[in-house]
């Protein structure tokens, strides 16, 4: 299974490795690799996978087992972190038949809890965030 998170981790590690390699990475031949790595990392860093870790992914997959989603559906959810029923319906085939409204709500809750969200997006209520941080 290869989620966006694994690619993100692979590229981040490769970038670190290449930092130490010195001048070699600027040679003409390496330009293509530099470009694709930079752009892909730039894209992935703005997606939920940049806030994930192997433990979070494992916890997510374990919690998702009873919902009986296919591998592709679970991966899409992992990569996109849907927050609304409409998004879930996009990623889960025939979701109206397979999941009831409560199940979809439950799914949204689970996703929101386990997969870290965008801190900028969630800064709408800073007071509440601070309170939650203090209590944790």
């Amino acid at each position, binding site marked *: *299974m*290869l989620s966006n998170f694994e*690619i993100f981790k692979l590229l981040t590690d490769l970038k670190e490795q290449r930092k130490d390699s010195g001048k070699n990475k600027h040679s003409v031949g390496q330009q293509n690799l530099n470009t694709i790595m930079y*752009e*892909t990392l730039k894209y992935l860093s703005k*997606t939920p996978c940049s806030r994930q870790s192997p433990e979070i992914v494992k916890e997510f997959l374990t919690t998702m087992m009873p919902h009986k989603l296919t591998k*592709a559906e679970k991966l899409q959810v992992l*990569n996109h972190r849907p927050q*609304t029923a409409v998004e879930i319906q*996009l990623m889960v085939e025939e979701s109206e038949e397979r999941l009831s409204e409560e199940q979809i709500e439950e799914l949204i809750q689970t996703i929101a809890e386990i997969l870290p969200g965008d801190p900028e997006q969630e800064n709408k209520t800073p007071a509440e965030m601070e309170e939650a941080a203090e209590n944790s």
Partner: protein
Amino acid sequence: MCCLLLVARDCIMFVLVDMVDTVRISPWDFHKRLNDAIAEELNKKLANKVVYNVGLCICLYDITKMDDSFIFPGDGASHTKVNFRYVVFHPFLDEVLVGKIKYCSQEGVHVTMGFFDDILIPPESLQQPAKFDEAEQVWLWEYETDEGAHDLYMDQGEEIRFRVTDEVFVDTSPTGPATATEDTAAQPGQSTGPPPEAAVEKKEAPYTLLGTISEPGLGLLSWWNN
């Protein structure tokens, strides 16, 4: 390219593709660790390049098998047959992706993901009814509400969620020199043949994705976020 593809493991957006190739390492790179030299050569050859019918190659994942290296007479470099896995961008059909609007044209809405640019949402796959505003060169969705039509513009730079409906691979390998046609045999005294239009070829993208946004939840992210 002497790459042989064995198996593609389908996963999402990014795929791991098993490949085989013979890697040539120049003598001035012999001081490097073999694995590093091979990794470098493979990345030099494949990174940021489209392999026909496979996808956009990103970077080397790992080397699974390495045969013995050979030096052939007349060439000081070593040749090593390597089995390896490469990370390739190849979204599956029906996959949902997020990109940014690059620009709009009569052909549709052009979307980019930064590392991959050739994504097109044709006019028939836009949320209907759709209209192309010639003056502003932008597509818009004539969204009907009880209060009347509300124009939703698809502006440059906006984040857009789309579903992959098709992919087009074009073989952009160089063709041989153009063969002379029968009627261009210039006779003495006559003017030269028609202007060489064929010399200026239209640059085609080797890999294009076609998408749709005509579904609830698809289109500009701002349309669906409260």
